[in-house]
């Protein structure tokens, strides 16, 4: 049946969406086959921003390769770095000080909020509402300023190092984060009024891009995409790392499976992140922010794997070491790639406008897919 719909016949309209297109948020290239306005097939073409990061990492030492991973999923740069640091620590068998663990988790959650914030604005913009984008950036900007103060950069922070974090927190950090939480909670209603409750928005999102639980699992979807279909897939719950087992938070699950469910998952996840930060921010223990490590790191011969929950889903870092100072092989399991694979399945039979609504909720970051 799928094959029948999927084949291109004479008279179909084949259009290229991208690599330069406002809706793909990057250099993704989709070849879509249309019958009038109805989509018959979507074929993603990748590779426009492939920088062979995995290969590049093989020639960098264990300290150096972490910064490159910020350039994969640049919206959750912290979390990527965190995954790499955790994986290297696993190999080195170092114990990360409590303080560093707390700092890492707070930073991860701030990153997640910033990432979802940007997605929220971009989602509304994809559907033609421009104003939410700027409102989302107001909150995101506050996070960026907090990051800048402590980590020294706004987007690609390179703050996590094997054994802890690079510097201690900025003295103002706690105060600023609390101010941000206040600001965020005061604006959250506005978000619902402006976008979530809007009848046009709901009609555009509901019943679009339906993914069943089975499909989500068999396509390897993770993160909010899977949770929107009711698949419990939060790595922070399944395999807690750092202090995630000490904080209380709910894994947001929606059973709708459509674009609106995925939208709700992300919006609610932001509130859960706020909840995590609220629990940690006052209890950061004193102590070292970095474990003592050797100047030149050498991982023992073997294979190491670590997975974390980025803003987009499960990121896995797989290192094969031959005992040298550089990895023999690195493989990243990026969430975006698997999530993109379900796009064709999601949008068949929908209109072109729905392509945008469905693709937006996948929260694609193209450098993450291509690496």
């Amino acid at each position, binding site marked *: 049946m799928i094959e029948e719909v999927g084949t291109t016949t004479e008279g179909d309209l084949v259009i290229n969406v991208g690599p330069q297109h406002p*809706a793909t948020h990057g250099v993704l290239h989709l070849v879509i086959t249309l019958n009038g*306005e109805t989509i018959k097939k979507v074929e993603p073409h990748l590779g426009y921003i492939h920088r062979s990061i995995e290969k590049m990492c093989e020639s960098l030492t264990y300290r150096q390769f972490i910064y490159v991973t910020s350039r994969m999923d640049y919206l959750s740069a912290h979390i990527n770095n965190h995954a790499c640091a955790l994986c290297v620590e696993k190999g080195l068998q170092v114990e990360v000080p409590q303080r560093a663990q707390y700092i890492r988790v707070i930073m991860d959650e701030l990153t997640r909020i910033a990432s979802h914030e940007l997605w929220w604005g971009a989602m509304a*913009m994809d559907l033609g*509402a*421009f*104003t939410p984008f700027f*409102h989302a950036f107001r909150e995101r900007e506050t996070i960026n300023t907090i990051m800048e103060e402590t980590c020294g950069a706004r987007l690609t922070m390179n703050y996590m190092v094997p054994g802890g974090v690079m510097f201690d927190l900025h003295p103002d950090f706690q105060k600023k984060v609390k101010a941000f939480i206040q600001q965020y909670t005061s604006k959250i209603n506005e978000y619902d009024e402006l976008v979530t409750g809007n009848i*046009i928005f709901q009609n555009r999102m509901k019943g679009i891009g339906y993914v069943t639980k089975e499909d989500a699992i068999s396509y390897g979807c993770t993160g909010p995409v899977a949770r929107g279909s009711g698949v419990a897939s939060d790595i922070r719950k399944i395999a807690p790392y750092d202090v995630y087992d000490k904080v209380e938070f709910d894994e947001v699950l929606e059973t709708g499976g459509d674009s609106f469910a995925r939208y709700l998952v992300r919006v609610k996840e932001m509130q859960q992140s706020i909840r995590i930060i609220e629990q940690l921010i006052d209890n950061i223990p004193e102590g070292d922010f970095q474990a003592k490590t050797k100047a030149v790191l050498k991982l023992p011969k073997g294979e190491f794997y670590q997975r974390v929950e980025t803003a987009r889903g499960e990121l896995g870092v797989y290192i094969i070491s031959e005992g040298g100072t550089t990895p023999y092989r690195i493989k990243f399991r990026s969430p975006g790639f698997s999530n993109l694979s379900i796009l064709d399945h999601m949008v068949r039979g929908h209109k072109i*406008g729905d392509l945008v609504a469905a693709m937006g909720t996948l929260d694609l970051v193209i450098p993450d897919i291509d690496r």
Partner: protein
Amino acid sequence: MFSLEGITKAIDTWLNAHFNSTVVLLAECVLVGVAAIALFAVLGLGLVWMERKVAAVMQIRLGPNRLGPKGIFQTSADTLKLIMKEGLTPDGADKFLFNLAPFIVMIVAMLVLAPISFAKNFQIWDINIGVLYVSAVSSLSVIGILMAGWSSNNKYSLLGAMRSGAQIVSYELSAGLAIISIVVLTGSLSINDIIQSQQNGWWIFKGHIPAIISFIIFIIAVTAETNRAPFDLAEAESELTAGFHTEYSGMKFALFFLAEYINIFIVCSIGATLFFGGWMPLHIGNWEAFNHIMDFIPSSIWFFGKTIFLIFLIMWFRWTFPRLRVDQLLNLEWKYLLPISLFNLLLMTVVAIMGWHF
């Protein structure tokens, strides 16, 4: 008291005193043409600037603020840039239609200007079927858009143009019905008569709830007809890049752009004329003193004030709402707007026959 009527009268008497009638007629034609084009340029620049400012403030930005006070000359600079740009014609395009399309859209926008009454006794052409003329001519612009979409040899353009066609044809209906409901009240199609009938209060106040409903329907329908967000499917940026004008550049693009704003101005001035009394000052029943004070404000200011208020409303929509999908757009028209406006027309007729309006 300042009035546009006085100026035209003075020019007319001066011309008549110095030249014979044929020359006077020709000279006045030229003057009207020049005035119309000047109005176009000013409106285009002004409205684009206004749009950008409104958008900016709603988006907690500052908007253009470099060139001139509050960035008022920014749009002129942009126009200069567009003029200097190369007007590209894509390979495989139907060159004749491709180059003709922006002019068709523009000329249609210009034609509609004729019966609009800008101030007391200040009108290019007082035609007795003014309202009918406006709705007839304004729907011609879809031909220009279809032409542009077809001739561009671009699939995005084609899709955009087809959407635009479906949209304009269907929303024409409810816009027409909303206009007719006011015509029912006044019993005349002439713009001047409609304005005169609002001597003692605007229709939106006098016509009870039916008038308010038809105003809402009118404003929704004209937003759709001018291809403005949330109905900007013809140029849906995130779906079709730029829709029907994807392949246009330079001044040809600017003409489409300008025509969009002129169309907004025209539909808003029609709206102001029908529901808010055009240039008619705010009169309340028989409060003589109040009415008298209101009369002191020049009629042109009343007209432009009301029109700009309506334009602002349309801009407000644009910067708040997401875009509809193409099937929802048609659903809205055929399942909601059309039945409601038909029912509303019936109600309005009853109101008019029974004389329930003030």
